[in-house]
């Protein structure tokens, strides 16, 4: 019985989120009150965040054979919860002009965050699949939430159908691996001939199919085609969620799979992953060059960033996990800020999002702080020193160089060089003369101040972490040690 309570304690953060989802349903069955629903969502997520921090001294807890709550899990739970809170803050002013039911958005948001949390803690195919579906299915609804706009509905359909195909690949891959090893737990996926033996063709096919599904969710290159369309069509806060929470959770899972499953230690597989990484960073950056839509541009840039991240899987150095934790945290913070500005300029909701780059021309003269925040985010995405993007990129380069992967190092450098062009182009446009026909960004009142504060805080954090990254690096180092051991 004592052990049961210990497990419940370990799973407290996701349980709190789940309870707040159930509470939201009960509330909506009784009465519709947007403020109350918003407060419950944010309250639940904040409580979960507090619980996550409080669990740090507890040490690894195995919650049933399905989940493991170690420091690695807690670190990414923290990232996911912070990003979800920011998305909720952006969604509030964005939806304030939406003349339909607004409350359900927060249910979908919290459910999706719950799936992401399950994914990060998964160490078994069962929890992997449940987590991935709980992350994705609410996202279909969120992408198509403003379904009266054609683009949003179209994006929802595209995401749903392609995601369904990816899930089918995932299940088939799991089935093949189960057939070959007779186990669903990550650590038991051992090649038939023992730890050092080569994986047979069935196992390679299984892990390859799983890789198809996971790289689809991460929008890496052969499976990236949906990304710009969905980012463009989705409401800005949802695009934020897709670019941050969804990517973080799936990548954290992929890393845990690669670190703990013995069959992933295969030269052929690692070369394949390296090729995917190289293709993602080059093609993502090249396609971003000629984009005039800021959301599409950020979509392509996220493809490139995930490509940089993937190099750490190939490297398999002792620093890899720490590098992933640092890079994902910096990438999430920066993306939240960039998408947050897009979301704020797009709101209040009026037809399509104001994501075309013309709407941002001369933003500095209308909303100076917002424009400066955007400029800082662009610098951070480009990896300029004194922003936290630089710290992440530094880690990636040191990992690839430490393991002697010079072709990937070259890819990261060339990709970053190309990326500089379009990030700086966006920056320059923010400070140009404002054209007469640009849509006026305006304060809509409710919740807008909160969202602005979040953007300012993110900008401040980007600079602070760039100058003094020690706390983040310490946290990431502990996360790396717990997973690596």
């Amino acid at each position: 019985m004592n052990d049961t309570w210990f497990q419940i304690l370990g799973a407290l953060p996701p349980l709190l989120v789940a309870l707040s989802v159930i509470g939201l349903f009960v509330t909506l069955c009784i009465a519709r009150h947007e403020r109350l629903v918003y407060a419950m969502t944010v309250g639940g997520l904040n409580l979960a965040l507090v619980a996550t921090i409080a669990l740090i001294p507890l040490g690894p807890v195995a919650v049933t054979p399905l989940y493991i709550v170690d420091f690695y899990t807690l670190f990414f739970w923290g990232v996911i919860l912070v990003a979800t809170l920011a998305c909720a803050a952006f969604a509030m002013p964005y939806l304030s002009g939406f003349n339909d039911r607004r409350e359900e958005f927060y249910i979908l948001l919290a459910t999706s965050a719950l799936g992401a949390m399950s994914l990060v803690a998964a160490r078994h195919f069962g929890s992997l699949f449940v987590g991935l579906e709980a992350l994705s299915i609410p996202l279909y609804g969120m992408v198509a939430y403003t379904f009266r706009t054609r683009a949003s509905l179209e994006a929802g359909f595209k995401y749903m159908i392609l995601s369904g195909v990816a899930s089918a690949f995932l299940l088939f891959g799991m089935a093949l691996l189960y057939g070959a090893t007779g186990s669903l737990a990550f650590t038991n996926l051992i090649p038939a001939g023992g730890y050092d033996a080569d994986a047979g063709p069935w196992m390679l096919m299984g892990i390859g199919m799983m890789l198809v599904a996971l790289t689809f969710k991460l929008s890496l290159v052969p499976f990236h085609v949906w990304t710009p369309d969905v980012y463009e069509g989705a409401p800005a806060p949802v695009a934020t969620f897709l670019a941050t929470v969804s990517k973080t959770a799936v990548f954290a899972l992929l890393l845990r799979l690669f670190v703990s499953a013995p069959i992933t230690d295969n030269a052929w597989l690692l070369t394949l992953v390296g090729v995917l990484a190289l293709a993602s960073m080059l093609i993502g950056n090249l396609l971003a060059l000629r984009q005039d839509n800021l959301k599409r541009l950020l979509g392509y840039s996220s493809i490139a960033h995930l490509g940089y991240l993937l190099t750490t899987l190939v490297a398999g150095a002792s620093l890899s996990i720490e590098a992933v934790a640092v890079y994902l945290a910096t990438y999430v913070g920066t993306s939240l800020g960039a998408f947050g500005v897009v979301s704020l300029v797009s709101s209040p909701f009026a037809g399509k999002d104001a994501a075309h780059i013309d709407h941002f021309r001369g933003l500095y003269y209308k909303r100076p702080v917002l424009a400066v925040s955007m400029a800082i985010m662009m610098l951070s995405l480009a990896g300029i020193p004194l922003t936290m993007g630089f710290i992440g990129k530094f880690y990636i380069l040191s990992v690839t160089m430490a393991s002697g992967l010079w072709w990937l190092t070259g890819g990261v450098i060339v990709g970053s060089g190309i990326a500089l062009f379009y990030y700086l182009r966006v920056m320059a446009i923010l400070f140009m003369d404002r054209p007469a026909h640009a849509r006026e960004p305006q304060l809509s009142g409710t919740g807008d101040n909160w969202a602005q504060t979040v953007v300012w805080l993110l900008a401040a954090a980007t600079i602070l972490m760039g100058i003094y990254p020690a706390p983040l690096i310490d946290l990431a180092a502990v996360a790396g040690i717990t997973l690596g051991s």
Partner: protein
Amino acid sequence: MEPAVQHTVVIWPLILFLVAALGLVTVMLGLSYVLGGRHDNRLGNQPYESGIKPTGSARTKFSAKFYLVAIIFVLFDLEIVFIFSWAISARDLGWVGYEAFLTFLFDLTLGFAYAWKIGALDWSPRAPRQLRLDAIESNQQRNLPSEQTS
């Protein structure tokens, strides 16, 4: 007995069945293709509706409500699958399983209450009276001269 021999013993009727089925279909379609008559005129391509001329397009509008109700039906119907699978092993699962199952049922009922509350189970989207009032209101908005509204 060797495993390979067992396999052939089990599988040959299946292969025979497959060949027979494919052959039957090929013969039926092939014969009617070779021996059958041809008529390519316009009337010949019309569907035969017991002598009545077909009218209108086949693509008529259906109410999206059918879809919604079907989805809700599938959702709550599938719940029975879970109830059965729990019921078979209820004794082995014990009280922990019972608690988990009650949680599941509670969440499901909550979903049902929610669907009811938002009117997903109503056949017509809104009360007819409200619909009429809305129509009148929107007509008034369209017809009013702009100086009166401003």
